[in-house]
């Protein structure tokens, strides 16, 4: 109240704020209430992707060093189903983007179909990865067999772990969509989960190159 500098209505409704320079988040009042805003959600997503990238960068550098340091590296036979899985994952990403286009055009039913297709394809990819692991196991290639197989299992498992998170997000959006509850706030969830899914796509392509070139 009488305290120096306390927040009074005078100070809030006083003269207009000084001109604000543009640039990276310039405090222009994007903060409009408790909890997450759309902008903050995107920032959070980019930051999350940076963290995931660092995890895979760490694994990659460990792999390069481990491969270069020793003479016990023997290339792991890659199950051919990996290529099929790659195609499935790419298709699922494409389906999600078709869904987003449909939503922009206001075609909600088409959105539901495409998004559900993308989600199912995502599960199919995970199933395909499981088959790949089982095939390796049947061929007698385990995590302890060779440093190359160790890294194969670690990287694919870590990718699958990320994928599980992504699938939860896709499934959440899908359930909301099928229950016809896609308010404006859900658009953020749609965009975020789609971008995360595309990231997992790119990550998988990178891993494929890594496996076939250095694995």
């Amino acid at each position, binding site marked *: 109240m009488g305290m120096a500098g306390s927040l009074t209505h005078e100070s809030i409704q006083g003269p207009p704020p000084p001109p*604000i320079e543009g640039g990276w988040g310039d*405090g222009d009042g994007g903060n409009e209430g408790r909890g997450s*805003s759309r902008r*903050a959600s995107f*920032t959070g997503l980019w*930051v999350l992707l940076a963290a995931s990238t660092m*995890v895979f960068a760490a694994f990659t550098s*460990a792999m390069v060093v*481990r491969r270069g340091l020793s003479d016990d590296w023997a290339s792991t036979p890659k199950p051919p189903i990996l290529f099929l899985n790659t195609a499935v994952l790419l298709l699922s990403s494409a389906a999600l983007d078709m869904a987003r286009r449909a939503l922009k055009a206001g075609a909600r039913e088409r959105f539901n179909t495409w998004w559900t297709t993308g989600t199912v394809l995502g599960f199919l990819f995970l199933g395909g990865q499981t088959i790949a692991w089982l095939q390796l196991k049947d061929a007698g290639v385990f*995590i302890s067999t060779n440093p190359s197989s160790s890294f194969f299992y670690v990287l694919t498992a870590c990718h699958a772990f990320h994928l599980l998170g992504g699938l939860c997000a896709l499934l959440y959006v899908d359930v909301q969509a099928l229950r016809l509850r896609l308010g404006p706030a859900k658009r953020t969830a749609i965009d975020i989960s789609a971008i995360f899914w595309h990231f997992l796509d790119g990550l998988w392509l990178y891993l494929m190159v890594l496996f076939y070139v250095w694995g």
Partner: protein
Amino acid sequence: MSAPAHASAHHAPSGFWRKYVFSLDHKVIGIQYYFLGLFSVFLGMSLSLLMRFHMVNPEAKVSWFAKLWPTAAAGGIMTPELYLSLMTMHGTIMVFFVLTTVPQSGFGNYFLPIQIGAEDMAFPVLNMMSFWTTFLALVVMVSAFFVQGGAPLAGWTAYPPLSGAGRITGPGEGMGQTLWIISIAIFCGASLMGAINFIATTVDLRCKGMKLMRMPLTCWTWLVTAILGLLGFAVLLAAGVLLILDRVAGSSFFLPSGLFISDQIIANHKGGSPLLWQHLFWFFGHPEVYIAILPGMGVTSHLLATFARKPIFGYKAMVYAVLAIGFLGFLVWGHHMFMSGMNPYSAMAFSVLTMCIGVPSAIKTFNWIGTLWGGKIHFTTAMMFALGFVSLFISGGLSGIFLGQPALDLYFHDTYFVVGHFHMIMGVAAIFGMFAGTFYWFPKMFGRMMNETLGKIHFYLTFLGVYGIFTPMHYVGIVGNPRRYSDFSNVEYLAGVIPVHQFMTYCAYVTVAAQIIFVVNLFWSIRKGPKAPVNPWNATSLEWTIPSPPPFDNFAGVHPVVYHGPYEYSVPGVERDFIMQTDAPNPVPAEG
């Protein structure tokens, strides 16, 4: 889900669980982190007390040792293995659950949203999960004491092969070490969640007029710390996954062939590289040093300006120095590995980069002194701890210059010189930052003032005590006293330093006793301290515009607007000697 665009007060949840336990309120979460850190710091301190006691009384038979550790201290005499496990847990608990947790997750959680004019963190649910994940990590870590074989003994750096080969390398290296790695992995997850929240909040939730260059320096240090945590903990998580696979899945990432441990040849591992772990660990580990110290620098800058009643000297230089320290922090991990037989050219590169960090560090130090110069200094307890921070930062920083030289480090590396160095700069300096923050922000957090007399007694005892403990360590290190040894009473060339060790141990007793004064002051003041006004320190930043303690949504539904920088003290021609960040721009007085 979606936030309302209009200004209206939000009401706090009324249920006990939602309000105090699984709270989404950043202020409650900040206080939860603070008390988690307080518990951890006393646990870690107790362990160090046992170590200091044992060092000067290696033969002592203590009956309750035998009760606590029937095998590791059979007959009441501490075994070297028990000593190592105390050392490991002391380092781990202090680094992760105190230095990483309190300055950033505790104070940062509480004050970052308020200082930038936001109602909460960007992702309150994530924030709550982050705290409870940290709590889980602490539970898992402490449980390592109670499993068969006890706590791990590979140090807080967990170097393989000691940490990777399993039970055969020592009693705590079975279940205890496994739990250690699991706990650290959980902690990494918690820190990543926290980092995402801090960055998104700072970037997107600043109120009108709060330009980046108007943020208090505390916010800058929390932001840079979050970035360091984001990049660092991700790498530690990856390294931890590989290490645990070496232990439980039989892989050989870090374990080489031909290991011979406890009279046995280890046949199931081959080709791994222990140095690979060191690279991954220290890529995290060096930024971790700055994760611990940067928030302390922010608090110190903030307090020196407030209590010297002067603008911070060189605000922009301070911001760029923090950014430079954060950036360079990722390029110098090799200076922890000069001993590893690295190529001398690599060592030289790491050494030069390490020296480069001296430049932004010196900028900060000169600017602190420049801020004090000619100021009307108010010697509050908070201010004295901030001054103590500057002192410790200089003392600890200077010995770092010696350790950054590969040739000197080869000699110093495994001696007490290093122990003295990192305790001064990373441990005690950061702790002084926390004390400064506690005394400064306590009125806002709990609505009451702390006792200044008790605070000053606590300060003087602690300040003299820590210098008494850690300064002689440099000396015994130069003499060649190795670190990590539980007993050197029968080493001829060290006979002369035993009295020095006794002195350090006495200083440790005094310092620990002084902390009881702090705890009494803290809890007494929470209940009985005199009521705090809105702005007891005549400070300028946003937290001092709202009631103590703040309402549930900080600004009672109004959106503050900022017109000034954070350090406008002793402004000529102004009635009070300061301008709040929310004060109307000069000279037009607000109407009404």
